[in-house]
């Protein structure tokens, strides 16, 4: 509450009438309500403790072993997974710290085997697993889970079981589902008992209600989500998305505010603690590096029936994420060119602090693209993103959005080397690019033709229709598509543009000279390399000669994906534009990777040179600036590239020296949507700080950077990822 200068009058007994009169130019020392959300001392301390690894001391549960009992009882795969969830929940010791209002701390490390290696090989012979095996990188229908509560889900399971009692598969699945529900409920009641033991009646009340029943308050809803989400991780699933958080959480907050139980500042402190909790166990989660754990959260957009979805919680999440400033959850915002600037400014204030949040998705491009690829309009409007940027539908998608990548550099490089040697025309070379892309797509899809998705009884509880139909999630849901990254496109397009200009149009560079240079990594022909690197058209400068090649590459890629009518699970192949970690792997190779790496390329890039991140101009080329970048990338037909992939722009933090800059950055974000691009990753960094952090990591422990679809602590990244970030184009001073 603000006191004003004129509250005190002479008649007020508090007023010393011998003192000078208080005039309007005097100000009381009452701070105005904070412009930004700040962690209260309790939470600031919690964050510090988290960063110091304080909660790791509770990881003292004895190692869980389920293999023996699985063998002894001759359990099926589904039963083993359920037993895994069961024993892992059971093994968690209830940890309630005095500073906590939202509880759960993982006390186990590692994941027990449910089969040994030989059994796994035998069971999956003739098929393959995806990454680590267990279902990952999808998003539960958290709204449904919270609204029903796990006790109701259990009733649904039992009702279906009764109805399908003559279907042994359904019965087995539903029994497994119930086993997992009971495990999670038991975990919650042990936490409730511990709360009572400690005299934390506030928590005990909550823990008796959730996650069994529908939450009565925002606080209960957060606690329910924490348990149900954490249970996924300890069941062996990963990249567990949080979905449209502001949509499903808002009703609980709205009711609290309406009844006067909670005000927005109080809600923001709870929200902050919930966000902190997502960072507590995350060092245990699988991913390329810490931070790549896919705890993606989506804000904004439209509702299933096409009404504006932004609500006060949307804004609070943006504010709180800024104040919490940690790498989880990963904030995403859906918007269009008509999104209010006030919301974009709030988002730009989060962009300012350099976490790489939010990642923006343009509904005007994404939703029609999904509908054009077979998604029901209501589902398309309900989209969220997976671990990086790939679109998925909460509760309804059993999609593998990252079966791999098409190496656009290799497609072009192979076509150029073979085509030039054979005396092809440029059209002939493009034909070879087409053929190579189809080959790469076919190889990837072929390698996933017999994908085995292990049963996932607990995840099935959280998805739409599995309990209702008596079928495990692994059998498929409404959407069963696969996604492929179209990786490292800018260098590939630049190489085509350079060859077209110098070898074919101007005929100034003989094909053999280029072939010789590529074969020798340009060592004896630096002048040629410089010419290709500096004088050829480059993607990102609104130069049609280069941009046309980029458009062509994605058209060919989309054609190749469209040519596959069925991915083996009655789904399609979705082409994307991200590069993920391929910006390193395709440049340097990677053990076990089937995507082809490349050496020197015709754009002047030498062997080993790192590629740019998703949609971004090639490293080291001269770019005019972010407006030209927008103009270049506006030329793509994003409706075809429906797996997603962000335009990636780095701003220097000096941009934000100007207090007006937040407004200008918001305008730039709106421009991204105005020109019709699909997704935007706009990051803030300071290259000098990053270089210093390489030299003196101890001074920059908490420095966060956006790596690709995730953010991580810079000093914890492998050096090659640090260098890739340092090498990015940065706009601003």
């Amino acid at each position: 509450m603000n006191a004003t200068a004129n509250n005190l009058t002479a008649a007020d007994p508090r007023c010393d009438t011998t003192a000078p009169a208080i005039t309007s130019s005097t100000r009381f020392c009452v701070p105005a309500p904070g412009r930004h959300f700040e962690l209260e001392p309790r939470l600031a301390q919690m964050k510090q403790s988290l960063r110091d690894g304080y909660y790791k001391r509770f990881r003292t549960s004895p190692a869980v072993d389920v293999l023996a009992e699985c063998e002894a009882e001759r359990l099926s795969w589904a039963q083993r997974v359920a037993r895994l969830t069961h024993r892992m929940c059971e093994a968690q010791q209830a940890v309630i710290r005095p500073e906590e209002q939202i509880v759960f701390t993982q006390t186990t490390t590692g994941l027990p085997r449910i089969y040994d290696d030989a059994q796994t090989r035998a069971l999956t012979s003739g098929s393959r697993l995806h990454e680590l095996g267990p279902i990952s990188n999808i998003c539960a229908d958290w709204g449904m889970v919270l609204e029903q509560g796990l006790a109701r889900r259990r009733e649904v399971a039992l009702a279906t079981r009764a109805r399908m009692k003559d279907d042994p598969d359904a019965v087995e699945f539903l029994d497994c589902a119930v086993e997992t529900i009971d495990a999670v409920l038991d975990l919650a009641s042990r936490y409730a008992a511990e709360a009572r033991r400690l005299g934390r009646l506030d928590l005990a009340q909550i823990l008796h209600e959730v996650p069994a029943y529908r939450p009565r308050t925002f606080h209960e809803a957060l606690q329910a989500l924490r348990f149900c989400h954490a249970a996924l991780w300890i069941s062996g699933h990963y990249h567990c998305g949080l979905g449209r958080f502001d949509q499903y959480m808002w009703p609980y907050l709205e009711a609290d505010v309406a009844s006067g139980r909670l005000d927005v500042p109080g809600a923001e402190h709870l929200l902050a603690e919930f966000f902190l909790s997502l960072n507590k166990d995350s060092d245990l989660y699988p991913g390329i590096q810490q931070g790549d754990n896919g705890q993606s959260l989506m804000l904004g957009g439209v509702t299933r029936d096409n009404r504006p979805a932004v609500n006060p919680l949307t804004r609070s999440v943006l504010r709180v994420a800024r104040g919490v400033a940690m790498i989880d959850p990963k904030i995403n915002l859906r918007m269009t060119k008509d999104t209010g600037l006030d919301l974009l400014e709030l988002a730009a204030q989060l962009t300012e602090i350099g976490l790489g949040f939010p990642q923006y998705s343009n509904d005007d491009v994404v939703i029609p693209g999904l509908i054009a690829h077979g998604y029901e309009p209501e589902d398309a409007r309900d989209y969220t993103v997976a671990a990086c940027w790939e679109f998925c539908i909460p509760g309804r998608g059993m999609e593998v959005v990252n079966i791999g990548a098409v190496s656009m550099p290799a497609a072009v490089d192979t076509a150029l080397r073979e085509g030039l040697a054979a005396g092809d025309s440029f059209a002939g070379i493009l034909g070879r690019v087409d053929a190579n892309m189809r080959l790469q797509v076919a190889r990837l899809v072929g390698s996933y033709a017999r994908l085995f998705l292990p049963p996932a009884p607990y995840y099935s509880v959280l998805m739409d229709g599995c309990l209702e139909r008596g079928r495990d999630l692994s059998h498929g849901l409404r959407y069963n598509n696969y996604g492929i990254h179209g990786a490292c496109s800018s260098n590939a397009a630049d190489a085509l543009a350079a060859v077209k200009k110098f070898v074919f149009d101007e005929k100034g560079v003989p094909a053999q000279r280029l072939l010789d240079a590529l074969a020798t990594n340009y060592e004896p022909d630096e002048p040629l390399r410089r010419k290709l690197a500096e004088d050829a058209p480059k993607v990102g400068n609104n130069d049609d000669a280069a941009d046309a090649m980029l458009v062509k590459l994605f058209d060919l890629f989309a054609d190749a994906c469209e040519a596959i009518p069925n991915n083996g699970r009655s789904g399609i192949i979705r082409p994307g534009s991200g590069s993920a970690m391929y910006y390193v792997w395709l440049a340097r190779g990677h053990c076990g990777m089937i995507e082809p790496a490349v050496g020197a390329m015709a754009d002047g890039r030498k062997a080993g040179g790192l590629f740019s991140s998703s949609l971004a101009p090639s490293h080291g080329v001269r770019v005019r600036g972010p407006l030209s970048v927008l103009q270049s990338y506006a030329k793509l037909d994003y409706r075809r590239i429906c797996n997603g992939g962000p335009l990636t722009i780095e701003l220097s933090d000096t941009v934000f020296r100007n207090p007006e800059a937040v407004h200008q950055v918001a305008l730039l974000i709106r421009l991204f949507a105005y020109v019709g691009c699909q997704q935007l990753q706009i990051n803030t960094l300071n290259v000098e700080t990053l270089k210093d952090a390489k030299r003196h990591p101890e001074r920059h422990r908490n420095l966060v950077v956006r790596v690709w679809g995730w953010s991580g602590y810079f000093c914890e990244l492998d050096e090659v990822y640090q260098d890739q970030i340092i090498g990015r184009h940065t706009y601003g001073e």
Partner: protein
Amino acid sequence: MLTGVVFDIKEFAVHDGPGVRVTVFLKGCPLRCSWCHNPEGLSPRPQVMRGAAGERVAGQVFTSTELAARLNNQAGLLRAGEGGVTFSGGEPLAQAEFVAEVMDQLDNIHVVLDTSGHAEGAAFRLVASKASVVFLDLKLADPDQHRYHTGANNARILQNLRLLGGLGVPFVIRVPLIPGVTDTEANLSGIAHLIAGVPGLQRVDLLPYNRAAGAKYAACGQVFQPSFDQSRPSNPNAACLEPAGVEVRVL
């Protein structure tokens, strides 16, 4: 048709006016401010810059039509971004007729003229009258100090300030805060009194000194010789500007 020399065209320049802007840096400047952080903007002719990354030429020749076409290519974006084009440099008024000719060919774009004001009155009037907003860089109120630190006194600048008041073009005064030189109470109060009451004055921007200023000198084959102590922080003493009666912004 006139030609001009430009040494940079920067997209999304956030310190050069409102909204999403492109700043055109005209090459050549009649002043020699000792703190200048664009040494490649001093000489009007294209020149070679030699740095660690190799050589490049600073300074590209454009006809007015070529430059206008390049800017118009982004007109839609700049309008949608509630921004426009800023002519800066160097000193844009050293190529006043060229700049005016470019402006006449722009497609409904908001224009900021960012100038030192050290130019003939006719040149100043020619370009300023076409601008949407003028940024006038006032450094030193005292003429002798002005000559010492920039190579010329401020008589023309102050004449053009009065001219500006009569033109009816809104303007912003920009003061680079050079430690111990321009950021003193005396200087800032002096500036405040010079600008108070001039019609069209919107606000004063204080620009803290940029420590990276010296970086490009070696690449230009020049030596950075500041007339001030770089290690001192600049003092954004906004209170001294109160007599001007307008908002003071520290960038």
